[in-house]
């Protein structure tokens, strides 16, 4: 018998009322009739699912909630109900995928009624519990079958972290020039740069020259200097800020003779370094000073044809450096090379100043021909604009 729309609505209200009173049987009878009449939204179906669950009829509850989700795939309570139902029958994976979807579909907590807020929080906890379970299982499994690939391949370990959602993928984001088809590597393997031996071996001598410069207290200037002719970029207050300052031995490809004269041993230690040499741009070689409590906000560099090298010289505890998903602590005398077009940041949470020697090298993957062409191309750009570039490492 076809009921009028109003009668169906009244019957649905009766069913909901019965459910609230805990009379599952009456609720089920009424709501089943509503569904037979053709439910227009998910509510009566979901209410029917609750009623069936109270009556212990799992199969009917599942059918009803599936019906609700067919009408409204992002219905929050229906997703949570389904997650609980799957968890109830021991299907962790299915449960986890419904909980996950519920967490994603949920509006911000402050827009939720209080009872749902708790429910969404519970779904979030279930998700992380399943994620931990998955991770434990997988790691145990890999330990068992280990062909020592796990320890020998840092990139496999990283792939695993990405798979488990513990790390995200970072891509190169150069601001000025993107060279195609290069591997996207955050920190390079030390073994790629045999010439780093010379630089590291000279750490004490370089530190001695740095100490003399610091004692004089001149020659350092803010690292980020504004250019009045260019749109001011958001540098989160770093522009002109003495918290992050530099003393240059080479700046944008030009030697700074008065500073080099004060650091002969540093200059000598860099003799074998494959500096990226591009007119008006690079290399820069500098002592970079980060004041106590200062933080260089996340940013990405200009071109991916060079790498940045750091030789840490003065490193109080509480200093850190992040490139992409890799966070490291600088160690005095241990150099590293990283791709500065991948988002990176630095901080000094100590109460003393941090100082590193910083310089630019060609990316090892670039052939001599390619380096020559990059050089030529930037010269071409300067010829085109007729003016030196606005450039700061």
């Amino acid at each position, binding site marked *: 018998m076809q009921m009028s729309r109003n009668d169906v609505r009244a019957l649905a209200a009766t069913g909901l009322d019965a459910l609230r009173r805990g009379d599952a049987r009456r609720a089920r009878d009424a709501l089943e009739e509503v569904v037979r009449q053709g439910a227009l939204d998910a509510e009566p179906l979901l209410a029917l699912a609750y009623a069936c669950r109270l009556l212990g009829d799992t199969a009917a509850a599942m059918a009803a909630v599936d019906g609700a989700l067919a009408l409204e795939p992002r219905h929050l309570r229906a997703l949570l109900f389904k997650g609980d139902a799957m968890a109830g029958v021991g299907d962790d994976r299915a449960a986890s995928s419904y909980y996950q979807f519920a967490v994603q579909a949920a509006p911000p907590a402050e827009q939720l009624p209080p009872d749902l807020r708790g429910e969404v929080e519970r779904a979030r906890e279930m998700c992380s519990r399943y994620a931990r379970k998955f991770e434990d299982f997988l790691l145990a499994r890999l330990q068992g079958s*280990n062909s020592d690939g796990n320890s020998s*391949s840092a990139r496999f370990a990283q792939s695993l972290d*990405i*798979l488990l959602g513990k790390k995200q993928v970072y891509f190169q984001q150069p601001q000025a020039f*993107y060279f195609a*088809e290069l591997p996207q590597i955050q920190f390079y393997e030390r073994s790629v740069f045999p010439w780093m031996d010379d630089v590291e071996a000279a750490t004490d001598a370089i530190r001695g020259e740095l100490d003399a410069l610091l004692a004089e207290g001149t020659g350092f200037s803010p690292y980020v200097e504004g250019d009045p002719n260019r*749109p001011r970029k958001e540098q989160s207050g770093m522009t002109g800020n003495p918290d992050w300052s530099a003393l240059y031995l080479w700046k944008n490809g030009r030697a700074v003779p008065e500073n080099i004269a004060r650091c002969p041993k540093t200059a000598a230690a860099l003799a074998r370094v494959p500096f990226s040499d591009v007119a008006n741009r690079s290399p820069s070689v500098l002592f970079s000073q980060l004041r106590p409590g200062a933080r260089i906000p996340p940013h990405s560099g200009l071109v991916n044809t060079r790498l940045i090298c750091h030789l840490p010289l003065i490193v109080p505890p509480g200093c850190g450096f992040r490139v992409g998903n890799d966070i490291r602590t600088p160690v005095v005398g241990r150099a590293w090379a990283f791709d500065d077009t991948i988002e990176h940041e630095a901080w000094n949470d100590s109460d003393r100043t941090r100082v590193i020697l910083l310089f630019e090298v060609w990316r090892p993957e670039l052939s001599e021909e390619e380096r020559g062409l990059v050089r*030529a191309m930037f010269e071409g750009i300067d010829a085109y604009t007729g003016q030196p570039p606005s450039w700061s490492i």
Partner: protein
Amino acid sequence: MHSLAHTSPEIDALEAKAMLAAQAGREAEAVQLWNRILELAPNHTRTLNALGQRAFRQGDIPYARAAFQRIVEADGTVPQQWIQLAVACRRLNDEMAEERAIQGALRIDPRDLVALILRANLLDRQGKLHQAFQAHGAVAAVAPPMQQLPPDLRPAVTEAFAHLAKYNKDKGAFLDSYLDQFYPTFAGENLNRFRTSVDIMVGRKKRFDSQSLQYHYPNLAPIEFFDRGEFPWLDAVEQATHEIRDEFLEVLNTEEGFTPYISYPPGVPVNQFAELNNSPRWNAFHLFKLGQRVDANAARCPGTMAVLEHVPQPDQAGRTPAAMFSLLSPRTTIPAHVGVSNARLVTHLPLIVPENCYFRVGNDTRQWIPGKAWVFDDTIEHEARNESDKLRVVLIFDIWHPHLTPPERTMITALTAGLNAFEAG
């Protein structure tokens, strides 16, 4: 605004009266009242603004400029105050003052869209090509999507984009001829990725990254089509083209064993493949499917199976290798998509290729040539088109990414077994 400092009950009363007069259209009376306010408080910004705007509307630009100038001197904390001064200076052709006013607005808010538009416009008029490019770039960077823009700003933003495109085009042409003097020095060298980098810089090509849907392997280079030299075993595959094609034609005659290439289980969202889902327009005959040999089909293609034995097929149970004859029907397009994992690459050996068939990976669009294989990274966006009236057939199979070491491959195989065990448990 600091006009509060100039308020007094008397000024407030005058201002209220002036407003009523202006609203009622009694202009002369309003002006008289405003001038009276300025006698009492010469820097009363609201009054200066009312008089300046009125003068500007009536074409008395020198008066408007003087009023706007006094506002920024007395207050100057709001970009709009500087912007209206800049506009007045522009009407008077005083470029120096216009520039100062624009800078004034940008000092307060470096991302003020109107001020950025005015600056780009000024630099255009001054013929400062390269600075204008930077300025238009700032407009483009700051502007919200077109439909969210007030209609009166849309033409200026559209022009900024056009300006950028033109500048990049000219710059590209200049660099091409500039670099022409260097290329001959390196004749015979592979400079493709350098050329691509220039194309990307001047906007002739887009940048494409690897976007694995399921498993991303880090530190690998996003390469669209790989260099043939990385795969010495391809020679043997290509040499077997005739034999492989003959086996395929045998199979085709029987019409058995073909299944739609895309076949999602019911209930799974079908995304861009809605049209091809379960469709015979893109059919496959599988030799390996989801890591398993399809015995019934393999038995009918012994020559092809023998060739595949010498190929570095990946080993991920339940997932890969796959190897199949892929049949793309006439007038059929496989829409742009990305694959599941960059740990494996995909090889094509074209067998039957009518005219007007195309394959694009990232920036690189190629045509299949029977017997000429290639290897590409299917986690980079790619698509295929058969615009002919005939069937296109390619042998497709997965291989390990060549830059994975043997221990890495072993670990990936173990990882897959672990995933399968977890999902089974």
